């Protein structure tokens, strides 16, 4: 069963909140993980690992650098779960 795009966004926001303490509302689609949300590379890897677990997808390390904004991550997960 696939997650909808809004479920992925909400789930990601929860993961980011758990890792960084940022409010879930702050995790908006157009925000950059590094520039807007101030998430460092180690936190980003933790978020990726938790997202893999939550959404049952694989996000290879080499692809993580392409996930600049929250929407990039939502799109990636959305596509990965179809694969």
């Amino acid at each position, binding site marked *: 069963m696939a997650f909808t795009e809004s479920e992925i966004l909400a789930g990601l926001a929860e993961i980011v909140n*758990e*890792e*960084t*303490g940022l409010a879930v509302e702050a995790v908006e689609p157009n925000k950059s993980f590094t520039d807007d949300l101030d998430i460092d590379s*180690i936190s980003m*890897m*933790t978020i990726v*690992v938790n997202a*893999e*677990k939550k959404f049952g997808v694989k996000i290879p390390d080499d692809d993580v650098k392409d996930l600049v904004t929250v929407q990039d991550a939502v799109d990636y997960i959305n596509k990965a779960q179809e694969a």
Partner: protein
Amino acid sequence: MTPKVVVTGIGAVTPLGATADATWQAILAGVSGVHTMDNDWAEKYGLTVDFAAQVDPQVVPEKLKRVQAKRLDPSSQFALISAREAMADAGLDETDPDRTAVAWSTGIGGVWTLLDAWDTLQTEGPRRVMPLTVPMLMPNGPAAAIGMEFKARAGVQTLVSACASSTESLGHAYDLVSSGQADVVIAGGSEAAIHPITLAAFNSMQALSRRTDSPETASRPYDVGRDGFVMGEGSGTLILETEEHAKARGAKIYAEVASWGISNDAYHITGGEPGGKYALRAMQEALDSADLSPADIKHVNAHATSTPVGDIPESVAIHELLGDHVSDALVSATKSMTGHLLGGTGAVESILTVKALQERVAPPTINIEEVDPEVHINIVRDTPAELPAGDIAAISNSFGFGGHNAVVAFKSV
């Protein structure tokens, strides 16, 4: 002339309380922090020992933000909480980063982080092993956490010598301040290693008390019926600075750190040299380098862990050190109440020593029914005892696996 080094702040997280003061009040009241553990380890793993001296599990969630806590091993969580208390107690809202250092110990390091990661690897695979695993488990993790929080750029170091660790850190802190390398040193140690593995291992060694029917009385240093130590956990922080620096900012001063001494038995990996010869040497060095005589020493916070073999050599060494003045020195074995905090023990016991000098009261040693006939020192039993007025001094002893002996000497102010 070497500047005087003083203690201006204290902080502690112990099985007896979430602050230095709560711990001190419980100590004076003779409270045991040892209890049967609220977990299923005895059943699940068949552990013989089902009790320990644990920190109240509410302390960390109450005092640390969730996001910060999850990035820190419990040994670092305790460290940061006690360091914050000590810095606030010292009134040091801001320090000069270039003149601020950290001297911090753990005995074992982030054992929970390591073993949790191992469990994750086994059950969920390598991808689920979190990226912060190594910085969380490293023994210098607590020192680094404190250093970052307080911007200590004059050096952040971790000395590891098992149960002597945090006394060595205090000694190192004394050296940093007295040599002029730092104005302020955040010193101490922490441990959070109560885990089925450590309990199984120490029990295999026959080092732990097995008094499961009466855990509160299990830690009984110097008693004829002592049968081992009790695992504890927690953290202690002392803020050391030059007297000049402290007075210039109008800080309160608990006590002077007079000097310290160190030695090694080079004898057996776990067993101390039975005559206490090198424990004596460390104590003697602490006195000599501080220009203290046996007549000055009115209080000893002993290492005394409640093991059958460990307590005697230390008591012999104290007797030899003080000679005719041995009866004037009130000896307290506070592990009877706190359990053994391993890498945190020296720091917490130094805090208790400093409080004893400040309030002129030596803590009790609880649970002694009959003093071992081989012990010939003046033990404070059951209730606190008054220390004399005037200029007095005290020592706090710590000894660790590996033959490490470390002793810090304090003077009243």
